[in-house]
């Protein structure tokens, strides 16, 4: 469940990170933390090269088990999100994805 009072306020918080973050690393760190805190799941961001998912940031690894894995592209680079445990209905991926792409794209050179 969202810890904020509404889905809208969660999206606003994610959107606000774009203005508040210093650079790509700062943005991804904070976005991962926000997702983890607000959705109540552990989240890890990776960049995908070939078949390798290279860790970028997040707290999902230690609790690693079956993960919900989603991918998205920003500035021609492929990224992945792993969420543990499977958050089911709580991760509204279709709604989060455009915001993440927007944030990642803005901070990537």
């Amino acid at each position, binding site marked *: 469940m969202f810890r904020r009072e509404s889905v809208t306020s969660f999206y606003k918080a994610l959107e606000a990170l774009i203005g508040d973050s210093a650079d790509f690393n700062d943005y991804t760190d904070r976005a991962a933390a926000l997702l983890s805190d607000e959705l109540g799941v552990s989240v*890890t961001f*990776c960049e995908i*090269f*070939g*078949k*390798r*998912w*290279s*860790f*970028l940031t997040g707290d999902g*690894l*230690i609790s*690693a*088990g*079956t*993960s919900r894995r989603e991918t998205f592209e920003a500035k021609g680079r492929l990224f992945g999100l*792993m969420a543990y*445990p499977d958050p089911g209905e709580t991760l509204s991926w279709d709604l989060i994805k455009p915001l993440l792409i927007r944030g990642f794209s803005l901070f990537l050179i």
Partner: protein
Amino acid sequence: MGKMSVKEWADNVVKEEEIDRYLDNGKDFIDHDAIERHLEKNKKSDKIKIRDIIQKSLSIQRLDPDETASLLHVKDPELWQEMAAAGLEVKKKVYDNRIVIFAPLYCSNLCVNNCLYCGFRKDNTHEIRRVLTPAQVRMEAESLVKMGHKRLIVVYGEHPSSDADYMAETIRAIYDVKEQTRKGTGTIRRVNINAAPLSVDDFKKLWKAGIGTYQVFQETYHRPTYKKMHPVGPKSDYRWRLYTHHRAMEAGIDDVAIGALFGLYHWRYDVMGLLYHAMELENKFDGIGPHTVSFPRLMPADNAPYSEHSRHLVSDEEFKKLVTVLRLAIPYTGMIVTAREKPALRKDVIKLGCTQTDASTRIGLGAYSEQYDRQDKERQQFVLGDTRELDDVVRELAQMGMISSFCTAGYRCGRTGDKIMGLLKCGTEGKFCKLNAVLTFREWLDDFSSPETQKIGEELIRKEIAEIKQDDFFQNNPLLKEFEDYYQRVSEGERDLFL
């Protein structure tokens, strides 16, 4: 390579600034005098001291040079037995009882170097030279997938025709392969690379292509021997090779693999060299040591007389000792024994705590897809000791109570570098290893095994699942339920599910 000649290309490989920046006050990390001193002063240790060192290793702490030198000088057979048993226990703590299976794929044998012990050396006119096209590499990978392989170590000679761009292209070609199997689809899921030292920019090309582990061996850490063995070419630069893992790490490749070719110089010295190398990587890269350590022995090679006449050739007994000490000295690392060794010895050495081995190995160029079944010295770097098929090796491991794992989960979940090091040292990664070993073994049995191997494999899987269910780690852990769900789905034909 533009208009550059091969010689000009070779002359421009080494970039001094990509060595110098890693040095400490102009010195590299192999301190010859210190190694000699450690070896000299630790020639005699009492049993209590040796047993204390064993206990330290069993707590998954890397040993220091004095401790390692003490183990290297043990003479008491009883203590060697204790050390061997401890090595296997260390391995089980970190990796459980799985053995990761891989196959080598040789892409090219043109080389600008002239290593005295190697069949690929440029002055060896007997060697049939070849660089596989990406389409041919793909055919090799297709053959390997049909055998059941999921993980490769891809090998290249050092030459402009097999430069980093070529390597990246071959990695992509291999990842593209998809073959139907009995119950599902087979692919290569992890491409590791064994290649000559590269610059940081070139490593970035491999990184972007999706390399798994970057592996290169120093051959020997003993400078005078190194100089003698590698008279010309980029490989003659000891430090360029010594710091190649640093450059790979700087480029983002955080799984790197080290090794020494035992038989070039004294085995005790090169064990110490490997330890120093592991310590250096830990020190410079926030605790990330080598992902694996390899310890190939010098083998006869075509038209390379030194390969048979070195005065430092390692006997079987010495080989077992060096593997035992390496296992204890760097407890968190993976250890690879290959088909260079004959089946009986390989079996013995696996029981000393090795974590990976190859099978159905062919090291000739095009040998998998062109199906020449005898060893062809003119197309090989050296002569293999074990050419058994994958099914035979899997069956033998199962008879030994060890499960063949085709797992490639870690690097597809961000578990590399410092992430996997932490999980290895606390034993958590081993739990994932066990689950993923069972899942991939299930796949392999259903898709590739012979009836004989299937039979013993089913018994082994039942035992493994029973162990998993009894393991305290999995009690009240959602992982167990997830594993059971995955196992059911894999049994029904779904593929590539991992934890």
